[in-house]
């Protein structure tokens, strides 16, 4: 699960990770109130959306008066912010973070995530803060220093010291960075985060070490033990069709193509998307209906897929292992009749009772393209697209 920057900072603050003073605002008036509370003469107005690259898109402004705080906030709220992570459609700004301006001396990078190759959490630091870390990793990998953490003991002081020295810090800056890294790791670990990225991590002229940005993601599988974090979910940031699908226990991801698909199992669903592409189409979605593909799941799946106007054909690919194909076929027939699907449907059912299933589909009088193998399904998709 993803959360907003200001929510991430609230969590960091709870775990004694230093952050600039700030607060969330939903209106320009509120923004001014927050700025007044913070005090000082310089504030930063930051658009809160679930995507990076906000600065370049005009989502981060430095205000030098309360009037400017008001003006920037007014302009930013309701605007569609387009960054390299939002896609061309962008995202509408509905919340702002108002923060104190800080005297930046150095911009650094720190990130914590699970390193799957060693099955341990790894802390990464770099002197190249404020840049796209993927770019640093690709061009100058030697500028990223990593330290894997043994889960049985957690982060050790020597590891934090080593990383802080690698950042070229000394004196009070070094000391504060050690404290920062240790607290950040604890926050990551205690909240079952899957990513904690601070970019930039800033060292101020006064020697303070602060998280200027905070990108924190959480392990969905562990949310059950963190109800307070689950509450941070912002449905406005998610695709409405995906939210709708999740209500029916369907795992749906919207894509930009013209062939919708409905599959049981995530791996087979990805493979089905690939085969649509090979057949000359573009997948319109990922949709895993899970183990029980019955009339209701198929009908709900149709509803979701057909809400996307780009869909010109549907490919249903079900490998019935434990679930019987003839039952799935009946579900497909009933759902097609009830939802009045008018675009071509290619159906491939394989596994238990596959022959009976094909007969049911062919005798239904509905316009199904019945395929027996994956190869045949691909050919039929190519066929219906050529019509």
């Amino acid at each position: 699960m993803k959360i907003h920057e200001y929510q991430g900072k609230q969590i960091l603050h709870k775990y004694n990770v230093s952050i600039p003073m700030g607060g969330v605002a939903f209106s320009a008036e509120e923004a001014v109130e927050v700025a007044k509370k913070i005090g000082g003469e310089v504030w930063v107005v930051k658009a809160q959306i679930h995507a990076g690259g906000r600065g370049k898109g005009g989502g981060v402004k430095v205000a030098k008066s309360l009037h400017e705080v008001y003006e920037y906030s007014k302009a930013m709220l309701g605007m569609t912010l387009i960054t390299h992570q939002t896609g061309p459609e962008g995202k509408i700004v509905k919340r702002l973070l108002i923060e104190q301006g800080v005297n930046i001396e150095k911009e650094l990078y720190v990130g914590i995530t699970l390193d799957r190759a060693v099955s341990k959490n790894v802390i990464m630091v770099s002197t190249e803060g404020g840049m796209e870390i993927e770019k640093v990793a690709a061009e100058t990998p030697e500028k990223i220093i990593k330290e894997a953490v043994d889960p049985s003991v957690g982060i050790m002081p020597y590891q934090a010291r080593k990383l802080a020295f690698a950042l070229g810090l000394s004196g009070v800056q070094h000391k504060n960075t050690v404290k920062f890294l240790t607290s950040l790791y604890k926050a990551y670990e205690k909240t079952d985060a899957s990513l904690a990225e601070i970019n930039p991590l800033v060292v101020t002229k006064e020697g303070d070490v602060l998280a200027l940005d905070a990108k924190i993601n959480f392990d969905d599988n562990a949310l059950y033990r963190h109800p307070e974090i689950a509450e941070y979910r912002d449905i406005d940031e998610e695709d409405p069709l995906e939210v709708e699908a999740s209500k029916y226990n369907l795992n749906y991801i919207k894509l930009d193509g013209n062939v919708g698909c409905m599959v049981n199992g995530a791996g087979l669903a990805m493979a089905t998307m690939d085969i649509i592409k090979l057949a000359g189409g573009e997948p319109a979605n990922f949709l895993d209906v899970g183990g029980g593909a019955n009339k209701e799941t198929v009908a709900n799946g149709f509803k979701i897929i057909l809400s996307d106007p780009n869909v010109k054909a549907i490919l249903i690919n079900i490998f019935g292992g434990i679930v019987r194909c003839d039952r799935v076929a009946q579900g497909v027939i009933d759902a097609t009749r009830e939802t009045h699907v008018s675009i071509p449907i290619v159906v491939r059912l394989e596994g238990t009772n596959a022959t009976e299933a094909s007969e049911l589909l062919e005798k239904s009088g509905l316009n199904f393209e019945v395929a027996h193998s994956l190869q045949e399904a691909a050919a039929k998709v190519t066929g219906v697209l050529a019509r």
Partner: protein
Amino acid sequence: MSILVNNKTRLVVQGITGGEGSFHSLQMIEYGTKVVAGVTPGKGGTVFEGVPVFNTVADAVKNQKANTSVIFVPPAFAADAILEAANAGIKVIICITEGIPAADMMNVYNSIKGKDITLVGPNCPGVISPGQAKVGIMPGFIHKKGRIGVVSRSGTLTYEAVKQLTDQNLGQSTCVGIGGDPVIGSKFVDIIKLFNEDKDTDGIIMIGEIGGTAEEEAAEFIKKNVKKPVVGFIAGRTAPPGRRMGHAGAIISGGKGTAAEKMAAMKKAGIMVVESPAEMGITMAKAIAKLKAKNAPAKKAAAQKTTQPKTTPKKKAVAKKAVSKSKIKSKTKK
């Protein structure tokens, strides 16, 4: 032979009285798997479909000599169940449960690492050695006893590969679903090592997907150590970056873990990478035919030397046919 599970497997089902556990226990028993015990804390002393239920895995090991465990307990209790099995002396632990927190699995993985224990999963369909034992949730009937090993991160896509093999009249030695999570007990490398050492496995199908670098690590191992033909497929070439495609581990993050990268690494290692998932079976069939043709003259010569009457004329004819076929092929290629 086969790997991990066979007719010597004495299985204990952890969570045997739960919804999933009870259904699949019956399916496994029906297939012929020796299900010798079940474990449900608090239900020790009861009997499930003729299988004695114990309070602890240690009791199941002591009383029923269980040597393999399959886990169906809910995600919040699964890490505990794995470690209970490990500490009770179970050597092969297969965890089906989906949705275990990654932090829990990280602790489990690092705790059993280096010990003589094989953990398969979690979030996987299990392991089957056709004709010997089915330990998991896969449909038994699509499998056929034979000499191809299958290893995969997915469930239904594995069934697809198995079906394609069976349709080509190629049976399987063992099929292993390693699971779709970011932290799993056995990675591609671990299973491919076993297949490579197994005398009764002639070829390997590996089915990967986007996310992580396990396929690249396996490719590196195969390049150095594996002489058996390997057919590979990577699911998710059309998956967008930054989105989790159903499986917790199927995500392209920071531009890493793409299908293109994995396929390139695998091709470089000599793996026959198929573009379409519909071609896994046929590609393996071709590779095996080629291998047979290559080995046939040697076998024929050996047979002539010893002049053993055991070699049936039928077999010789098959070998001859294969030779002539391969000759034609090499001619047309040139």
